[in-house]
């Protein structure tokens, strides 16, 4: 009985993992995944190409996760990539959602980073004429 309970627990735990592995078949990617600006705090600009493979049926959307803003929506496999002009000063999460469902199909982050990571470097630069 104990063994049965253990197997049951494992099966229950494994079920969401199975769901995620199905989501991975969506192959949601962003190229490039990093946006690099010169100084910490600056707005970073980058054209990012999102790609995915959604199932034949259903309504899907690419959304900015934090803002819940839909960037584009489509039916089935009608659209499989989207070029987005990213502008931001912090790492930003993007989700692929199946319309009407709470759980996103897949998520990724476009990481914002800087060459001069300490604000001091830039602030003091004026001293260096």
């Amino acid at each position, binding site marked *: 009985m104990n063994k049965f309970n253990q197997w049951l627990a494992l099966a229950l735990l494994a079920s969401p993992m199975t769901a995620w592995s199905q989501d991975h078949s969506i192959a949601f990617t962003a190229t490039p995944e990093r946006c690099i*600006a010169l100084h910490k705090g600056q707005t970073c600009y980058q054209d990012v190409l999102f790609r995915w493979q959604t199932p034949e049926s259903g309504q899907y959307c690419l959304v900015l996760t934090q803002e819940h803003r839909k960037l584009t929506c489509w039916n089935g496999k009608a659209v499989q990539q989207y070029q987005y002009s990213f502008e931001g000063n912090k790492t930003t999460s993007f989700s692929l959602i199946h319309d009407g469902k709470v759980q996103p199909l897949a998520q990724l982050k476009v990481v914002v980073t800087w060459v001069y990571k300490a604000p001091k470097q*830039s602030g*003091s630069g004026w001293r260096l004429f």
Partner: protein
Amino acid sequence: MSNNVNKMSVRIIRAILLTLMMIPGITAASDIASSVGGGVENRLADGGYFELGASVYGVNKVDIRQTSHQAVQPTLLISGMYQYKGLFVEMIHQSQDGVNLGFNFWNSENWSLDLLLANLQTSWSRPEDIDPSMLDEAGRNAYLMSEESLYIGAGFRATRYWGDRYVFQYRLVSDYFDGQGIMSTARLGTSWQVRNWNFHALASIEYSSATLNRHRFGVSDEEATEQFPEYRPGSSFSYGMELGVAYPLSESFVFRTMYRLNVLSNEVTDSPFNQTGYVSFFNASISYVF
């Protein structure tokens, strides 16, 4: 003996300075775009950075004593700055004001005042152990084609910030190494961002005292030759404009390029050493930021 040691140390420092500043006489621009990005409130924090890279520059020949001048030249880029509790050292690639060791002693929201304990720049000087009156004409010509030396000064610097975009800086230094004279600059800079390109523009006025101009560009009666007649300049002002841009190639590599035009005063251009009325300088570099 001590004179030779002194000369040797000057030569070593001069070599370092030349590497840092890339060209004699006219040191270069700074990364003004980078300076504005961080904002005024962070300028007092401890820290710094160091960069190594490769650079190519082009400049016209301004002085007849620039015997090794080449129109375009590759060079090593060594750049960095560090500040700890107000004490700072600056060796900034493309800086027009040389290498600085100083102390930041007063700040307000928009102002910053620094003591410059040592400001090192390239200069000209004559051999100290030679009496030109003992030389013949050819000997004096060779004597006057003196090598570069160092300007080592001290003074102060005041900087006014207007948000992240505009900065004004005034500085005054006086040479205490061998009394070359006073140098003073006023510069107004601005920077702006176009996507990930960081542009800067800079306008400058530079004052040189009569002592400094005589040291650099003058010829005394006893030194004078047919090629280098006696010349006794007064003080002068020169004017400059600069435009530059920096772009992050990756998290560690930065591309920079800039152009600067300095218009020299008559006090300088009338010198028998001078060959042109302006300095036209271009630089491009790629550096690794540690």
